[in-house]
């Protein structure tokens, strides 16, 4: 009678399981020290967290010096490149300058700044349409169709979108928004830019191998510099509308987001072409707190998605309607009474 194969008679003893896990962990620590350092940087402040960060930092420095992290990083870059969909807007663009040089974050090449007294609004027509660009993160992806619908099919409006999920001002390694905006606006000027960005920003910032803990004084300094660079990149745009961050369901995130929103509001005030358009009064409960439902035309309707960060289409419509009205007042309906300022945030 044939013997069963050896493996069928073998089970793993607990010490073998431990050895397998230990060796696998060692390989991960050696070849993915960057990932370990990222994880350590997110640990809560405290003695243990700081010790872990120091240890992870040393490990990262040592393995980077040996070049052990290069294979994974190269593979990661390749993978992102081969899985990213290529999207081009349908409208014909003027030819972009050949390989625009990347612009350093701190000093983006300035697009001509708006003169102190704004030039009169041009008469928009089908031959000289109002060029609107909607930029930001996943909020933009989800809001795009709603905003497009709110603009209607007026042939005098040319609407484009430029978004990337999971980006913001904290992670220029993912997308360097200030530099990106300089390049985008240099390639094709716009009359209106609508920005809905920064929901992902409450996270540590790594710059020059220094990890700045979220909302620490050094983090705020770096963040404000980036925010200023982003807004400066749009100085040549006639109208910039900054959609203020809404209430968040998660209390910790909400706390951080409100601090960011205040910084955004103050930064917007320094740029005369930027209008801060707060989403809080439009999408919050009567006491300005977070709510997932609102009574709309007599029906209780869900306005927030289950993650407590994004909105349902109905929720995005609550923002898009007044925003588009405001934009049309400022541009196409020049001469009509301007809408009151929205510079208030919870």
């Amino acid at each position, binding site marked *: 009678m044939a013997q069963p194969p050896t493996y069928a008679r073998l089970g793993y003893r607990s010490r073998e399981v431990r050895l397998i896990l230990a060796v696998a962990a060692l390989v991960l620590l050696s070849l993915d020290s960057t990932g370990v350092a990222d994880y350590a940087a997110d640990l809560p402040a405290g003695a243990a967290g700081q010790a872990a960060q120091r240890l992870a930092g040393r490990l990262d420095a040592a393995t980077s010096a040996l070049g052990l992290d290069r294979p994974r990083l190269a593979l990661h870059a390749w993978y*992102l490149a081969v899985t990213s969909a290529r999207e081009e807007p349908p409208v014909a663009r003027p030819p972009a300058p050949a390989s625009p040089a990347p612009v350093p974050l701190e000093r983006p090449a300035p697009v001509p700044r708006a003169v102190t007294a704004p030039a009169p609004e041009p008469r928009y027509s089908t031959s000289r349409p109002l060029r609107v660009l909607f930029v930001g993160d996943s909020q933009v992806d989800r809001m795009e169709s709603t905003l497009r619908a709110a603009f209607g099919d007026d042939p005098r409006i040319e609407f484009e979108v430029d978004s990337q999920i999971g980006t913001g001002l904290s992670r220029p390694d993912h997308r360097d928004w200030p530099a990106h905006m300089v390049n985008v606006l240099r390639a094709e000027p716009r009359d209106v830019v609508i920005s809905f960005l920064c929901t992902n920003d409450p996270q540590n910032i790594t710059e020059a191998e220094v990890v700045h803990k979220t909302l620490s004084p050094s983090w705020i300094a770096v963040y404000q510099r980036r925010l200023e660079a982003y807004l400066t990149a749009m100085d040549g745009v006639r109208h910039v509308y900054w959609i203020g961050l809404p209430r968040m369901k998660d209390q910790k995130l909400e706390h951080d987001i409100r601090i960011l929103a205040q910084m955004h509001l103050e930064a917007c005030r320094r740029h005369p072409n930027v209008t801060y358009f707060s989403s809080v009064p439009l999408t919050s409960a009567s006491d300005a707190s977070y709510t997932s*439902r609102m009574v709309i035309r007599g029906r209780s309707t869900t306005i927030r998605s289950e993650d407590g960060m994004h909105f349902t289409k109905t929720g995005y419509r609550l923002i898009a309607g007044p925003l588009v009205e405001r934009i049309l007042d400022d541009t196409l309906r020049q001469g009509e009474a301007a809408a009151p300022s929205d510079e208030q945030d919870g």
Partner: protein
Amino acid sequence: MLFWTYGFGIFFGALILLCGSTPINSVRRKFVLLLASLYFYARFDWRFPALLCFSAVANYAAGWMIATAPAAWRRRLALGLSVAFNLFLLGYFKYQGFFADSLQNLLAAAGLEVQLRTVETVVPVGLSFYTFRAISYVVDVYRGELVPCRRFLDWMTCLTFFPYLVAGPVVRPKEFLSQLDAPRHPPVYEADFAFALIVVGLFKKIVIANSLQHGLVEPVLADPFSYSRGLVLAATYGYAIQIYSDFSAYSDLAIGVALLLGFRTPDNFESPYRAQSLQEFWRRWHITLSTWLRDYLYIPLGGSRKGAWRTAANLFVTMLLGGLWHGARGTFVCWGAWHGLGLVVERQWLLPRRKAESHPAVRAVRTVMTFHFVCLGWVLFRAESLADAWDHLRALMLPRTVAVEPFVLPGLLWLLLAGSLAAQFLPSGLLQPVRERIRLWPAAAQGLLLGIILVLLRAAWPDGVAPFIYAGF
């Protein structure tokens, strides 16, 4: 704490060390597992373990009351109260807003403007899963299929066991408790199978589900009218693959992690898209929930024992409630109704006419039709509202009158889409010979291989991986 994070790696490594070589049924091991599970759960929200413990205490007491009650009516009363308690927990935390909204809208349609007050609550992660497990415990005790737990520690370890806590599988206590009591010393593990499941689970989640979600499904379905119908169709298929990969990945990871701790878990998926009928689909998709609904809802309702119409009604109600179980949203209810209706039609009219032996082409047509029926269901499942689902369907059918966005889907994503569909038809146990070969390697070499595979998976790690879809239920 998600399975793919370094945080989980440290947590799990520490747990393996703490469990050491102690027998599966030792008090020390159970205690360590219990504390670890509560810690794991508290990482989502510190209030969640309190509710879980409350549920555990109530159901433990109910189990004993049912088992020891002298009269049948008392046993029935205890069972009724405990099931009502579990359903109340679900209703209060998960459905109160939905029911209040629905009632309010219904009254508004009748001309009555009523503002119902609801309490804004956080839905505890995994509530639906552990509540169903608790219900199966008291029902099994009532039916005499399970002796109530003598030790409270055993029951707590069972209900809180962290691999199953967040998104299933819906492992019944009778399947788990029997393993908890088995004296196995020293413990011997099926680690090769466990590691294979973990690697496959991570691949499905990180590479397949995540890449399709961010590269195809979300960009296209966020604004489907801006893209060609072909692309919307590809995104619809993409979502079918995404949700399968996402959910089965969680099951693979949970089963693998549980196996490394010494516990076997029933299968939860078995290539569902190769099914030739809806009935078969539900035998292959979320098997632990399907069988739970069959045993604790469909059969108690009367099953197929009370005539054709009653059977149809039972099927429909079971699927409707199964849909509602997924979340407090009208589209989930409609998704359940869609499947309920499909099962009724299939059972009453289609299956009786089927020949046992059919031509392969006929079988292929059946598979394609079943897959497309399921895909249409996913349109409802994914949509936030019926209007969104309708938009999606219109975008699939209506020709475009304006220029669509040129969208070049990378070849790798096409490959993932087609490969994932083709993989449904591969024979099961394909990796077994490889695994058996690797099993003969020294443990250190196996660890090296595991580490290299994890590094490769880390290379595909995006900057943000969405949580598991089913963790929201």
